[in-house]
């Protein structure tokens, strides 16, 4: 019940296209859903996050869509650029467990020029 399932494992998108990564969770106690971006050899960097009281959050080219009833959330990257090529992790946490992050398996995104 603590798992966060992420798909796809890898994704290739043409420059200018839309990249979509999906995550699903089971634990209804989760109340914070961040996305992290990780470049090789670096630590995860917080990209964007959402709380379950809203269905969508947009920051620049990055949008999180959240479906509470389906227990799913997704990351959309508009106008994808080669510099967006990285591994993306979704995660979830709850105040009841001291906000420890439960991570998805990661998606390796490659943007083709």
């Amino acid at each position, binding site marked *: 019940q603590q798992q966060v399932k992420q798909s796809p494992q890898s994704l290739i998108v043409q420059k200018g296209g839309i990249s979509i990564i999906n995550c699903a969770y089971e634990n209804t106690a989760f109340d914070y859903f*961040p996305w992290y971006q990780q470049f090789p050899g*670096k*630590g995860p960097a*917080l990209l964007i996050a959402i709380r379950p009281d809203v269905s969508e959050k947009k920051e620049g080219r990055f949008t999180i869509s959240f479906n509470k009833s389906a227990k799913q959330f997704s990351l959309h990257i508009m106008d994808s650029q080669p510099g967006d090529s990285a591994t993306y992790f979704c995660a979830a*946490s709850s105040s009841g467990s*001291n*906000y*420890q992050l439960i*991570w998805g398996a990661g998606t390796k995104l490659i943007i083709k020029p």
Partner: protein
Amino acid sequence: EPEVTQTPSHQVTQMGQEVILRCVPISNHLYFYWYRQILGQKVEFLVSFYNNEISEKSEIFDDQFSVERPDGSNFTLKIRSTKLEDSAMYFCASRLPMNYEQYFGPGTRLTVT
């Protein structure tokens, strides 16, 4: 911009040896975390720490592991007797009170031979 720092960036040790991984969280953050990432796998929670004590720990965080905040700035992870399977990237993270956002350091790559 304040950031989490970690030392060393790479540690090579022999099986059975003790290692100490060091982290300097962001200065006004009060909650601290250790995560690990085995090569090619997802990030896993190890332990959270607040007010000089462990708040939560995972099944991975067994008696071989310990954490300490020896002074006002450092946060350390000690592995008493390293095993081959402890080889991984270890990330430290910190956050403010009443704030979900965790900020990660660049990681320490631990190689146990």
